[in-house]
């Protein structure tokens, strides 16, 4: 089946995809009940929960609603930590597949944003260049390329690539897509940057070589003692030794 549909990125003025979502499990699951009443064999149903907080407990990820009810999520550990980190304990709108007693989250949305802030990892790799990469790695005979379908100027350009030699066409297509990717590159915007550190007034201890050898080869008690002495003298350890000093702290913490 070859359907061609037009893809339009959602704009800020558009209604967000999750605006109609319920904010409690009770309300969200009532549509599941209705669907099962109509036919009892659904394996999965779409479900969106707004104002939901991912919670990690007993080595599992749960999704907590505004009323404090929780449902376990079916997701990989990596996906779980990424979603948890993005939420930071704040509510998100989560879309996923309802599996009967658990939710497999597929995308997460912040506030009224029209763009998801998180997706299940497997869907991230689905870009145009990625689908050609598999053919390039396995060879075009074993894995015929999945030619991208694009509209507009890009599509017109790609359609002019002759397909007589599949290998050559793959490289040319990758060249066009790659150039577009480079031309469309946008640096990510940091949302929150730490403020600059205050000026450091303490003078550095000048005995860099001595301290360096203590931190590298000295026993732990001597290392600790030297930091105490530096602090007592109203000084700080030389900046150059900071990485090594942090390593010592790390070693000590693990012991």
């Amino acid at each position, binding site marked *: *089946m*070859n*359907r*061609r*549909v*037009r*893809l*339009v*990125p*959602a704009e800020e003025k*558009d*209604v967000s*995809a*999750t605006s*109609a979502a319920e904010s409690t499990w009770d309300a969200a699951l009532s*549509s599941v009940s*209705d*669907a*099962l*009443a*109509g*036919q*009892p*064999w*659904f*394996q*999965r*149903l*779409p479900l*969106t929960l707004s104002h939901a907080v991912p919670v990690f407990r007993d080595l599992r990820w749960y999704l907590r609603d505004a009323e404090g009810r929780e449902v376990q999520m079916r997701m990989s550990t990596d996906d779980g930590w990424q979603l948890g980190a993005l939420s930071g304990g704040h509510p998100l709108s989560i*879309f*996923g*597949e309802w599996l009967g007693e658990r939710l*497999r989250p*597929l*995308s997460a949305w912040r506030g009224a944003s*029209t*763009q*998801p802030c998180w*997706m*299940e990892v*497997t*869907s991230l790799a*689905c*870009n*145009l260049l990625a*689908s050609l990469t*598999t053919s390039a790695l396995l060879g075009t005979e074993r*894995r015929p390329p*999945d030619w*991208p*379908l694009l509209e507009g100027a890009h599509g017109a350009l790609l359609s002019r690539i002759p397909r007589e030699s599949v290998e050559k066409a793959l490289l040319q297509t990758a060249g066009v897509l790659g150039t577009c990717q480079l031309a469309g590159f946008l640096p990510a915007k940091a949302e929150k940057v730490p403020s600059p550190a205050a000026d450091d007034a303490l003078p550095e201890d000048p005995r860099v070589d001595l301290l360096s050898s203590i931190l590298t080869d000295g026993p732990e008690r001597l290392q600790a003692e030297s930091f105490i002495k530096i602090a007592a003298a109203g000084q700080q350890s030389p900046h150059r030794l900071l990485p090594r000093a942090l390593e010592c702290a790390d070693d000590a913490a693990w012991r």
Partner: protein
Amino acid sequence: MDAQASGLAAGVRQLESAVSSGEGWQQRTLLSMGRLQLLTEAMQRMDALPELLRHDVRSSAGWAMDKEDVLAANDRVLDAWHVLGISHDENEKLWERRVWLRGVASGRNALLLDFSHGGRRFDQALVPGTVVKATLCFFPSASPVAGAVGG
């Protein structure tokens, strides 16, 4: 297991995972077996079922829907569809892609189901956060919550 009744086959595989699902496995296994039982019984008395439910039984068992049946149901919706989420699953080298949509004007949920053998190659790069303008042809179903395909 009949390779054509992929829905039944999936139900039996689910039994397998229910058995090894840890505490409470007996109840989960029985639940899955009960649903399979309802499905096989419904299949034996197809003629007695209401038409829409008959389609549900067939598609739950895993038989492909006849194109004529879909067109005859004539449940077409023209809308701008939000791409809410996409899931990929692999089973014995057969990749299944589910694209979940929600109509901006209609508020209806829709599912675009695609299969690809041997690798995850799908003809459309649909991405959550985009809007697709399309007419979707819904499968006939007693609960057409999901289960639709573009046309």
